[in-house]
């Protein structure tokens, strides 16, 4: 693999960027990481993603690919003969993995974020309840997808593991902020154990942001309203 052929525009704190980086690690692809400065958007980012102006953007042989889940699928397909498969090959399992990954973004993440943006105790309680309900759905999804194996994808991490697992850093930060356990060992035991396995995976470990550093960043991104 020619280094310089692959660039990734992103940031250390972004869940969505992490997804792309885990996928690149899984395939052992060397890439140039272009760290965006918080508060500004680089010219390359604006030029490569004019529609959304957001990271991550993967640039492969000068062609940009945007949207984290689309990037992960692209990495799996473009380097299909490198490393393990990221998406299931069977059409039904493939669709199920992508369904739950979309659920993570469209339903679960939205609920998690509302805890950080909640104004007052009532709103916070409601947001927490929603996250708990949706995490419960994901626990069931894990049972359905993993089939007794250690990851959603089976023996090794895959698309859905990456989609949800990339949130684990922020998941902890929101728990601390809410002062409430959001990944409960007794309520969702399979997910709880999966989370530990995921974080210890060698392709994930170096990328997972350190909780204190991320919590400090979260305070910048989601400032608390003045009392």
């Amino acid at each position, binding site marked *: 693999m020619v280094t310089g052929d692959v660039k990734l525009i992103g940031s250390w704190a972004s869940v969505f960027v992490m997804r792309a980086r885990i996928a690149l690690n899984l395939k052992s692809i060397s890439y140039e990481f272009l760290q965006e400065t918080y508060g500004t958007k680089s010219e390359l980012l604006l030029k490569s993603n004019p*529609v959304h102006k957001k990271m991550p953007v993967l640039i*492969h042989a000068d*062609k940009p*690919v*945007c*949207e984290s889940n*689309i*990037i992960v*699928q*692209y990495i799996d*397909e*473009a380097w299909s003969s490198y490393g393990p498969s990221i998406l299931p090959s069977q*059409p*039904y399992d*493939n*669709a199920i993995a*992508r*369904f739950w990954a*979309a*659920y993570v973004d469209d*339903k679960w993440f939205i609920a998690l974020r509302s805890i950080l943006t909640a104004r007052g105790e009532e709103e916070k309680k409601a947001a927490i309840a929603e996250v708990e309900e949706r995490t419960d*759905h994901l626990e069931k999804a894990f049972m359905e997808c993993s089939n007794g194996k250690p990851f959603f994808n089976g023996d090794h991490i895959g698309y859905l593991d990456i989609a949800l697992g990339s949130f684990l850093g922020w998941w902890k930060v929101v728990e601390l902020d809410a002062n409430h356990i959001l990944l409960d060992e007794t309520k969702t035991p399979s997910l709880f154990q999966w989370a530990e396995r995921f974080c210890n995976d060698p392709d994930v470990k170096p990328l997972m942001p350190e909780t204190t550093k991320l919590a400090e960043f979260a305070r910048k991104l989601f400032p608390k309203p003045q009392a």
Partner: protein
Amino acid sequence: MAEKEEDVLLIGAWASPFSRRVEMALKLKGVPYDYSDEDYLVTKSPLLLQLNPIYKKVPVFVHKGKVLLESHLILEYIDQTWTRNPILPQDPYGKAMARFWAKFVDEQVTLIGFRSLVKSEEIDVAIKEAQELITYLEKEITGKMFFGGETIGFLDMVVGSMIPFCLVRGWEGMGIDMIPNEQFPELNRWIEKIKEIEIVRECIPNREKNIEHMMKIVGRIKAASKTA
């Protein structure tokens, strides 16, 4: 050997662009299927609620007892399962682009499109916003017969079901000319081209009924936002 009709069930709605596009794919690939129509402005069937408890929406696609949701996922499943007349590009970059634009249409264009239908004030701003997004699609289709290239594909089905045969009907009902020919010559050319295709014509809701339906939806959204 012909597939048994009972192998494939589609729960859809005649006016839903999300289920019509699934029908386009099934017809293109010659897959026989059973169809159950939901009158979703009135009620949701027990079967729908049982098979899609999370979103409670159409389309719901059942193949040999396996349930699939979300139109983009269903389209890709159909493409992978019945390989004649492929609807997605073969190359990874082409696939990524098709998926990107499909997401753009269903998330951004649909949101802004419906917003422009329900706005009573600042309608010009809403129209301009929608047209800015649609301009990206005008660029995408320039120089191509179809979004899929020489033949219709995944993105033609997504854009086609949502824009000319859903949102445009709503805009017509509101007296809005959202995609005038002078501003969007390529898109208009593409719309005429896809109308010529039999399987697309078979999967388009009747224009008058559709306009009436869209006006009902607009009325509902406006009423809901007043009580919110």
